[in-house]
């Protein structure tokens, strides 16, 4: 299993480098290579997940030492259940986005394919990194690729949103560095396991500095996880991005959530003495504020693209608030919700473009709400903008018509609505019910009843589901029913397939609900026992060189 751990980083890196050397032409060759690499990446991620899940011990952790240096000093990649889950999600979303992009979007600019693979490399590396500085480096790889991908397709709206996105993420990166430096100054180590292990030994005089460093690092991570009030960049950027890029970005905010979950459960568990559960209330209330902000934003959005962006914010808020409780039951439900929300949001971002096409609008970026927009009903179809997308042959990019296309779109839209709003019978419902039932049964020694924050999350979860349902069905009515003279939409199979696959994955999450929920609970249980991860990482030993062989 050991070499498999580093494969999710090496495979996209090698593929990206290979495609870069092929030059800007030969798009078909690159498309095939990229597709093969994405399929292989998904297979590797699934294989890792099955290996990790199949292992006997409760918190099975795979560790790989790329430089073959002893543990607290060298670089470490570690994969546990949480990492494996995130790897599968990013590979799955990546494959779906790529398939969608192959229909037309990969023609819209240069270097789409290498950037796409480097984006996947950054994502996977951030999930695998077991020390703070490599987490930073892979965050930067991921962000650098995302800056370029966000601008893919060009146009004023993208450049404007991209400028803000880059400036804010650069500032967040500097905060990240300050936080890492402060933690290093106190702990003298960058390895997450080493820091977590030594944390109870920090003298009281240094603890304030450590907490300040952790808080600054958390600000940087939470800005990427779209915590209110650090999330105003998200909706314009995601709504301006081209459909496949936005679908891939659905996992980007989850990286911030992942890093918070990983570091917070590792360093500040209930057993951490003076630092126990540091910042838990900030996570919960910040998450609730984000949830409220996202919900109101969904209600206020007139454009489907912005609505999908706000649904990403809503899911981030839900996850952060649920993580902040620090209880295995709630975290388990939240992880199920994470998987479902990522797939659902990704499918919705892909659907945005297809649905807009039903209205005979070759819109390239869905325009941001400009305030002068009409009420949702009885809207005239806007004129197609002058800059409609043209392919290499200067023909408007419209594919072969599928007779059942409208039915497919309607059904897919309805299913993704159910996933995002968390209604039965789809996967969003299972995740929410798991969280709600865990909220009603508080654990821990001091649990006389449900805390006010528990009731607040309980109410917000149900309320946000209702509002999401209203907002999405309003848009659905407007797009599918209240439009006059619907010509049959023209879709390509390769555009419908990824949407179908993402929604099928959501259905699969429900059909295999017991197995998935068991996996998520095991993940959450392991996260509540950070010693498992720490011991596994610290116990890793460098490989002894063969006698006479090179080191």
């Amino acid at each position, binding site marked *: 299993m050991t070499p498999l751990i580093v494969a999710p980083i090496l495979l996209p890196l090698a593929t990206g480098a290979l495609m870069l050397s092929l030059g800007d032409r030969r798009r078909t060759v690159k498309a095939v290579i990229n597709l093969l690499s994405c399929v292989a990446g998904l297979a590797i991620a699934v294989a890792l997940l099955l290996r990790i899940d199949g292992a006997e011990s409760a918190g099975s952790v795979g560790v790989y030492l790329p430089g073959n240096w002893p543990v607290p000093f060298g670089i470490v990649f570690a994969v546990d259940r949480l990492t494996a889950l995130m790897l599968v999600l990013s590979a799955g979303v990546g494959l779906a986005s790529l398939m969608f992009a192959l229909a037309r979007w990969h023609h819209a600019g240069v270097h789409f394919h290498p950037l796409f693979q480097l984006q996947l490399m950054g994502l996977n590396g951030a999930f695998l990194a077991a020390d703070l*500085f490599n987490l930073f*480096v892979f965050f*930067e790889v991921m962000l*650098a690729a995302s*800056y*370029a991908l966000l*601008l893919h397709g060009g*146009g*004023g709206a993208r*450049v*404007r949103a*991209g*400028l*803000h996105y*880059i*400036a804010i993420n*650069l*500032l967040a*990166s*500097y905060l990240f*560095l*300050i936080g*890492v*430096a*402060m933690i*290093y*100054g106190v702990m003298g180590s*960058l390895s997450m396991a080493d820091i977590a292990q030594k944390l109870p030994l920090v003298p009281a005089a240094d603890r304030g500095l450590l907490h300040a460093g952790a808080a600054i690092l958390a600000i940087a991570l939470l800005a990427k996880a779209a915590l209110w009030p650090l999330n105003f960049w998200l909706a314009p950027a995601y709504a301006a991005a081209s459909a496949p890029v936005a679908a891939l970005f659905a996992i980007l905010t989850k990286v911030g959530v992942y890093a918070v979950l990983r570091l917070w459960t590792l360093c500040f568990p209930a057993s951490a003495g003076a630092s126990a559960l540091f910042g838990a209330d900030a996570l919960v209330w910040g998450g609730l504020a984000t949830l409220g902000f996202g919900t109101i934003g969904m209600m206020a959005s007139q454009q489907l693209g912005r609505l999908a962006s706000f649904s990403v914010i809503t899911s981030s808020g839900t996850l952060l608030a649920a993580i902040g409780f620090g209880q295995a039951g709630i975290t388990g439900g939240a992880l199920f919700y994470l998987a479902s929300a990522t797939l659902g949001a990704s499918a919705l971002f892909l659907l945005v473009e297809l649905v807009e096409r039903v209205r005979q609008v070759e819109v390239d970026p869905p325009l941001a709400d400009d305030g002068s927009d009409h009420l949702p009903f009885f809207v005239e179809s806007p004129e197609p903008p002058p800059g409609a997308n043209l392919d290499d042959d200067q023909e408007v990019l419209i594919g072969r018509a599928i007779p059942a296309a409208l039915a497919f779109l309607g059904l897919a839209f309805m299913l993704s609505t159910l996933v995002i709003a968390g209604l039965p019978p789809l996967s969003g419902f299972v995740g929410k019910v798991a969280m709600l039932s865990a909220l009603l049964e508080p654990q821990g020694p001091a649990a006389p009843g449900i805390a006010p924050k528990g009731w607040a999350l309980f109410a917000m979860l149900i309320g946000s589901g209702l509002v999401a349902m209203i907002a999405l069905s309003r848009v659905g009515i407007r797009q599918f029913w209240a439009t006059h003279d619907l010509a049959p939409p023209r879709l390509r199979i390769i555009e419908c397939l990824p949407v179908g696959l993402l929604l099928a994955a959501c259905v699969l999450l429900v059909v295999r609900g017991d197995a998935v929920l068991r996996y998520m609970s095991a993940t959450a249980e392991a996260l509540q026992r950070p010693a498992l991860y720490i011991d596994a990482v610290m116990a890793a030993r460098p490989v002894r060189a063969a006698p006479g062989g090179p080191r």
Partner: protein
Amino acid sequence: METLISLAIGLLCGAGVYLVLRPRTFQVLMGLSLLSYAVNLFIFSMGSLSIDKEPIVRPGVTPDLQNYTDPMPQALVLTAIVIGFAMTALFLVVLLAQRGLTGSDHVDGEEERA
């Protein structure tokens, strides 16, 4: 020396934050650069400042922080400089693209309406 370094970091950081909050894209770029210098100095100072000590182990001298300075922050700073430099260059490209597309160097691509 600690005072001097702190003042330098504070000055760079203050100037950087002020410039980042300005409405022109070039000012934002300069602000981000100044902030990155401040951050790099800050990382450097986290390895306990010392004069006339090197981070590379010499034979015959006990390898501890009495005789050497901590090499780790220096390695981190190198990486951070490279990454910050690349990101600044990327920001510059986007800045120019926006200038070309909108004809304005305002961060929103259009002048504020009075």
